[in-house]
C-alpha cells in the first residue's frame, strides 16, 4: 500500500468515514500532501462514502484548497482595497522579487507558494498576509527580504513572530502579532462583565422565559441582516425535530470587518456562554462554531477554552447541575469562501459539501443543519444574548434606539488616525465615529463593507442603526486622495471572485458590471454606460438567489447614487459623436496582420 493510500485511509477513519466531515478530511489531506491530489479524489470518495466528483466539487470550491502541488509554506497576501491603499501592492511586488515568482506560482525548489487572498480581517493593521496559518501584520516592502530569508532558513512561520500582540494574542496557544486595537469599549460587550452569570440565571428560568427576554430586549442579528434573535430562537424551538442545532457564524468575511476576530480573542467565553444559553432556549445538544480559515490561528485557543468549560461543567452533560441539559460544541473550519457567511451556505459547508446556498423555504429554523431545526447567529449576537441574560432585557433595550437596541461593534479602518474597534450605542452618528477615529479628511465611507453602502458627506449625519445606516460592522474610510471608483471596481472584483456561480444573475451579472465599470474608468464610457450599469445592477440585485448576489451590485448602485458627479466627469461627451470605447486602429489590427500590410486609410 502506498503512503498516500494509507494516510488517506487514516484520515477518513479519524472522521468515521463520515461524508458530512468531508471538509475536515480534505483539509487534512491538503495539510499532509501540500495539496489534494487529483489521484486522491477517488480514494477519498471511496473512504468517505461519496463520489469522486463530489470530492472534486468541494476541493474546487474553496480558495484555500488546491489540487495543484503547493509549497510547504503558502503565503497569502491580503488583497483588500484597504491593504492596497496602505501599500499592499508594493509589498506584493517585493514578495515576487524576493521569491523570484509571480502570484499563484511556487518557487523552483517547490518550497514556497505565493497567492493573493480576500480580506483576512486585519484591515486595522494592514497590509497583512498569512504564512500558512500565521498572520503577519503591518507589512512594508522593507520587511519582506528578511521574512523570506527567515522562511528559507526555517519553514516554520511561527519563527517570524518576534513580538506578540496585546491581550490574549499573547496567550501561549495564540502567539500572534495581531493587535486588538480596542478603541472604545461600550457597556454591553467590551466592558468588564460577570462571567457566566447570564448562564446561571438562565438555568433558573424556563426556556420560554429565556426566549421571551431575548424578544423583549429587541436584539437583532449582528451579522447585518438584523433578523430578530428572539423570534429566530422561538421558531427553532417550536419547529418539530428531536435534534436541534446552535451554529455560530464566525466566518467574518465582509472586507473591512474584524470585530469577530477581537471577540473570539477577548470574549471567547462570552460567545460560548451565549451559545449555551441559546441551546438551553431552543433545546439543542450540539453547537458548531464555523471558523473562517483566516482565523485558524485562534483554533487551538478556542479548543482550549472549550476544554476548560467542559472541565468546569459549563459544557457537557447536566450543565451546572441542571439535570438533562446537555450541550457541547465543535469547531468547523472553513477553507476560504466569503459566501459561507450566508447562513445556508454555512450549513452546506458544515455538512461537508461545497458552500452553495440553499433555498430559504424551508428556512434553517425549520430545516437547517442535517435537515434539523437550526439557529445560526453571529458571534456578536451570542455575546449580546449572554449579557441580556445577566443584565435583563430592560437594561439592554434602554441602550440604542427604539428599533435598534443595544450597542454595535464597528471595525473602523482606512484613512483615519485610530483604526480599530468601537463599541457604540445604536443611533451614534457616523460623523461622531469619524471624529473619534481621527478621520478628518473623508470623501467616502463604506458602511457595511462592499455589500453595504458607499456614502458621502451628505449622509455623515445619519446614525448607525438598522433603520438608517445598517452595518454588520465594517466601516472603511476613504479620504479625498482616493479614487472612489477604484474602490468600487475592487469591490466588484471581490464579488466576481466570491460568487459561488449557482445562479445566473450573480455569476454573470457581476462580471458584466465589473467590465463595464472598467470601461467607464478608462474614460471610454458614455452616459449610456451609466444607464447600463444601473439597469444591470438592479436586475442582479432583484433576481439573485442569496444575500451575496442581492447585495453585490451595491458598490455600483450606491456610488451611482451618492457620487454621480465622479461618473459624470468620466463620461463627459467630447463632442466627437464617436463611441469612445471603439478604437479603429485596434479594430483593423488583426485584419492588417492577416493581410500582411497596414490599412491605407487607418494607420498611425
Amino acid at each position, binding site marked *: 500500500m502506498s503512503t498516500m493510500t494509507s494516510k488517506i485511509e487514516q484520515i477518513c477513519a479519524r472522521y468515521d468515514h463520515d461524508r458530512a466531515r468531508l471538509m475536515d478530511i480534505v483539509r487534512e489531506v491538503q495539510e499532509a500532501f501540500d495539496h489534494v491530489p487529483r489521484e486522491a479524489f477517488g480514494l477519498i470518495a471511496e473512504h468517505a462514502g461519496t463520489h469522486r466528483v*463530489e470530492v472534486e466539487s468541494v476541493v474546487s470550491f474553496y480558495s484555500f484548497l488546491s489540487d495543484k502541488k503547493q509549497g510547504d509554506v503558502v503565503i497569502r497576501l491580503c488583497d483588500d482595497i484597504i491593504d492596497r491603499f496602505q501599500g499592499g501592492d508594493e509589498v506584493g511586488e517585493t514578495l515576487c522579487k524576493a521569491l523570484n515568482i509571480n502570484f499563484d506560482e511556487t518557487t523552483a525548489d517547490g518550497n514556497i507558494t505565493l497567492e493573493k487572498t480576500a480580506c483576512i480581517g486585519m484591515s486595522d493593521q494592514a497590509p497583512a498576509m498569512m504564512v500558512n496559518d500565521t498572520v503577519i501584520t503591518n507589512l512594508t516592502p522593507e520587511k519582506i527580504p528578511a521574512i523570506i530569508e527567515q522562511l528559507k532558513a526555517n519553514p516554520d512561520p511561527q519563527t517570524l513572530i518576534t513580538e506578540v500582540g496585546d491581550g490574549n494574542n499573547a496567550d501561549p496557544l495564540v502567539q500572534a502579532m495581531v493587535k486588538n486595537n480596542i478603541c472604545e469599549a461600550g457597556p454591553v460587550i467590551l466592558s468588564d462583565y460577570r462571567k457566566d452569570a447570564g448562564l446561571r440565571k438562565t438555568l433558573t428560568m424556563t426556556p420560554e422565559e429565556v426566549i421571551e427576554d431575548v424578544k423583549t430586549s429587541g436584539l437583532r442579528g449582528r451579522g447585518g441582516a438584523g433578523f430578530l434573535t428572539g423570534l429566530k430562537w422561538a421558531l427553532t424551538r417550536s419547529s418539530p425535530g428531536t435534534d436541534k442545532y446552535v451554529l455560530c457564524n464566525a466566518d467574518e468575511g465582509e472586507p473591512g470587518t474584524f470585530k469577530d476576530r477581537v471577540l473570539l480573542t477577548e470574549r471567547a467565553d462570552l460567545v460560548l456562554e451565549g451559545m449555551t444559553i441559546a441551546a438551553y432556549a431552543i433545546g439543542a445538544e450540539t453547537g458548531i462554531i464555523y471558523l473562517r480559515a483566516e482565523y485558524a490561528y485562534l483554533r487551538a485557543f478556542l479548543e482550549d477554552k472549550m476544554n476548560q468549560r467542559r472541565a468546569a461543567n459549563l459544557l457537557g452533560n447536566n450543565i451546572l447541575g441542571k439535570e438533562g441539559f446537555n450541550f457541547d460544541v465543535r469547531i468547523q473550519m472553513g477553507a476560504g469562501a466569503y459566501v459561507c457567511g450566508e447562513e445556508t451556505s454555512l450549513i452546506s459547508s458544515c455538512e461537508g459539501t461545497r458552500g452553495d446556498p440553499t433555498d430559504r423555504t424551508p428556512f434553517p429554523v425549520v430545516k437547517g443543519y442535517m435537515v434539523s431545526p437550526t439557529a445560526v447567529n453571529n458571534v456578536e449576537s451570542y455575546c449580546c444574548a449572554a449579557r441580556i441574560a445577566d443584565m435583563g432585557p430592560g437594561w439592554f433595550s434602554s441602550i440604542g434606539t427604539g428599533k435598534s437596541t443595544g450597542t454595535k461593534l464597528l471595525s473602523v479602518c482606512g484613512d483615519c488616525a485610530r483604526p480599530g474597534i468601537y463599541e457604540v450605542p445604536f443611533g451614534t452618528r457616523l460623523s461622531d465615529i469619524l471624529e473619534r477615529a481621527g478621520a478628518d479628511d473623508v470623501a467616502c465611507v463604506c458602511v457595511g463593507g462592499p455589500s453595504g453602502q458607499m456614502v458621502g458627506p451628505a449622509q455623515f449625519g445619519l446614525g448607525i442603526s438598522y433603520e438608517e445606516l445598517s452595518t454588520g460592522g465594517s466601516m472603511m474610510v476613504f479620504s479625498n486622495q482616493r479614487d472612489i471608483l477604484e474602490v468600487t471596481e475592487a469591490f466588484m472584483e471581490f464579488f466576481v471572485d*466570491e460568487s459561488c456561480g*449557482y445562479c445566473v*444573475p450573480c455569476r454573470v451579472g457581476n462580471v458584466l458590471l465589473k467590465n463595464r465599470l472598467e470601461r467607464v474608468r478608462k474614460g471610454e464610457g458614455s452616459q449610456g454606460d451609466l444607464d447600463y450599469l444601473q439597469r444591470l445592477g438592479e436586475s442582479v440585485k432583484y433576481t439573485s438567489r442569496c444575500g451575496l448576489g442581492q447585495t453585490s451590485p451595491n458598490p455600483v448602485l450606491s456610488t451611482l447614487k451618492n457620487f454621480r458627479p465622479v461618473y459624470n466627469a468620466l463620461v463627459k461627451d467630447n463632442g466627437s459623436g464617436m463611441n469612445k470605447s471603439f478604437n479603429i486602429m485596434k479594430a483593423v489590427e488583426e485584419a492588417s496582420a492577416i493581410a500582411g500590410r497596414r490599412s491605407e486609410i487607418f494607420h498611425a
Partner: protein
Amino acid sequence: MSDAIKIKIDGKEIEARLGQTIMQAADEAGIYIPRLCAHPDLKPIGSCRVCTVVVDGRAQAACVKPVMEGMEIMNETPELLQHRRNIIDMMFVEGNHFCMFCEKSGNCELQALAYRFGITAPQYPYQFPEKDVDATHPDIMLDHNRCIMCARCVRASQELDGKNVFQSIGRGFERKIGVDGERALGDTDMAVTDKAADICPVGCIIKKRVGFEVPVGKRIYDKEPIGSDIEGVKS
C-alpha cells in the same frame, strides 16, 4: 379537497393545492411562467432565476416557492419581463452559443425562450470564454460551450437514474459541470439510455449520430413558441 386553496396571479384568481409550488399551480391553471432549470420530473433548485415572480412584494423563484392561501403573485409585469430578458441575455453571453451550427436548434429551450422574448441579439457583450468539448463517451458528447449550469443533468442522474454522473465544480464564472470519472465522461457509468442524457435544455449533452434525425423546421419550437403546451391546458 381540504388542501385546496386560492391564489392570485396577475390579479386572476386560480385554484391551487397546498404542497404545490407557484409554478406547478400556474402550469395547471394554464399560466406559463418562463423557466429553464426547472423540469417537471426533477426537484426544483431555483438556479436560473428566469421564473422570478413577485410574491406579496418580494422577488421569489416560482419553481421553488410553495403556494399559500391568498398569495398574490405578479408574473407578467414590464419590470419582471425586463429582468427575465436580462437574465436570458446573460446566459447567451456567458457561453458560446451558435444556434445556426447547433444540432439542438429548434429543440433548444434557451433559443426558444429568446424567441418568445423577442430577443434577436443580446444587449451585453459576448464573453467568448474558452470551454472544453468532451467526446470521450462512445454515445454522448458534452459541449461545455453551450452549458447554462442549470444542473438538470446533475439532478436527473441522481434522482431518476440512481447514479451520480454529474456535479458542479469550480465557483463563480469558472463554475462548470464536472463528471464522476478520472478524466472525462467516457470514464463514468453514464449510459445513453440514462434519463440524464435527454434532460439538457440546451445543446450541451448531445447524443451522437442522431442529431439531425428530425430536420430543422420540424422541431418542437419550430411549430409553436415555448410555453404553448402549458397555455393550451385551459384553452
